């Protein structure tokens, strides 16, 4: 059965102004993400992963084509975004509470109402931190979880994650990845994760899109991560993880050389 597209990129084109010539990153690029699924986008640095994500999140514009959510053009604010550089993406002049409820501040919602929502969301996501602190008073892992809470605070229709674990040290990385995927699983939210780390892609995604390294980028392969019934946070410990990793590493190498 063909699954219906929830997020859809149709013939999207995007160029950047280069020093000498314009650089075409996306040319007639199309991509579909099914409802309640997590799509991994894997590719080397500079292949256009973050551009795709920025267009979906609405902080980058595209030159041509359509970007749709449930069949309608995506409006900024509909898609929550988790950034690679957590400390740079949080606002250090605002408390954790105000960071998480920033979208509500923009809507002019009262402080009391915002604080209630922040308490609700941190409790329901299992994030145990003092919301009156400032971001720089938290550890890297805690800051990334605050970013996640902020991205989910306004109940977005989808979530995009740009290399969300790559700035974390090895020990924090595994636990934050596990916490993040537990939250994504529990909310049943449609998500896109871009990464140049295959382990992250397999641990988080239902399907992985392998991008070519040459520009304009194109889809080399779409692989299904067949781990039916294994909870996202448990995947890395499952028996078939290494097998899938071996298999997809070959695809990744082929995509890089393509």
């Amino acid at each position, binding site marked *: 059965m063909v699954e219906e597209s929830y997020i859809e990129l149709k013939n999207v084109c995007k160029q950047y102004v280069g020093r000498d010539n314009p650089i075409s990153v996306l040319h007639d690029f199309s991509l579909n993400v099914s409802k309640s699924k997590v799509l991994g986008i894997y590719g080397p640095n500079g292949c256009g992963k973050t551009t795709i994500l920025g267009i979906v999140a609405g902080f980058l514009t595209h030159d041509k084509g359509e970007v749709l959510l449930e069949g309608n053009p995506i409006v900024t*604010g509909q898609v929550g*975004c988790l950034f690679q550089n957590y400390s740079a993406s949080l606002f250090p002049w605002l408390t954790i509470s105000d960071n998480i409820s*920033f979208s509500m501040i923009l809507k002019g919602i009262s402080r009391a109402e915002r604080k209630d929502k922040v308490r609700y969301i941190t409790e329901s996501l299992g994030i145990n931190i003092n919301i009156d602190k400032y971001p720089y008073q938290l550890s890297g892992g805690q800051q990334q979880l605050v970013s996640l809470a902020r991205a989910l605070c306004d109940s977005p229709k989808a979530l995009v994650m740009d290399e969300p674990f790559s700035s974390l040290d090895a020990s924090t990385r595994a636990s934050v990845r596990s916490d993040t995927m537990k939250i994504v699983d529990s909310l049943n939210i449609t998500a896109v994760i871009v990464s140049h780390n295959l382990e992250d892609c397999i641990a988080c995604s239902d399907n992985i899109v392998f991008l070519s390294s040459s520009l304009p980028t194109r889809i080399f392969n779409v692989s299904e991560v067949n781990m039916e019934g294994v909870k996202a946070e448990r995947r890395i410990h499952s028996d078939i993880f290494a097998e899938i990793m071996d298999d997809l590493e070959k695809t990744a190498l082929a995509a890089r050389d393509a």
Partner: protein
Amino acid sequence: MKKEHWLIPLLILVLWSILSYTKIVSQFFMATPSETFLRLYDLIISGEILKDIGWTLYRIFLGLLVGSIIGMGFGLLIGLVPVVWKYSQGTIDFFRSLPAFALFPFFILVFGHGDPAKIGTTAWFVAFIMLISTSYAIQDVNETRIQAAKSLGANRLSIFYRISMPDGLPQLLVGFRTCLSFAPIVVVATEMFSGTEYGIGDRIYEARLLYKVADMYASLIVAGIIGLILNKLFLYFVERKIHWSGR
């Protein structure tokens, strides 16, 4: 002030005492610490110097205010509209290279010998520093923070006052601190050059003319203390209110 901050002033005091009490340096050039501090005490008790301090602070304050408003206004314009910077960079670099003191005669010519010339010279100096720091503060805003705000639904106006302003504020205040250090210098110098009824610069100049060496030294100490207090108050404010500076 911490303990270690007193060490160098104490060493200076010891050196000053040795040079003046032993008359290695003639009393014609150097009053002794006791003469200077006694004179300072008299000037404060009589209230004589308080008017000078008040007028100097008034000129510093107005120079900073006028200069900051003009500098920040143009700095915002340049920071927000890069094409303005493209066209005005050469002109700005030329005018900001002109020493403020060299322009003092021009301001006297335009405004006369009164306060507007002194305040205008100070404002000129402040304006260019604030212009450059404001435009850099606006241009150097962290792009990831802007993207994060956009993804949360912020429009251009919200991004400006909720992200660009607070993100650029520490950079802007670095410029303001430079102004705060140099504005008293400019004001005191203009008070010395053009003469005025009240002002620390005028008091220093007059003391030198009349060979009131202790008076001159006492006034110099007051000028230094004004700068020190302004800087300390500013740092106190920044450390408490702009807590995210450098984060």
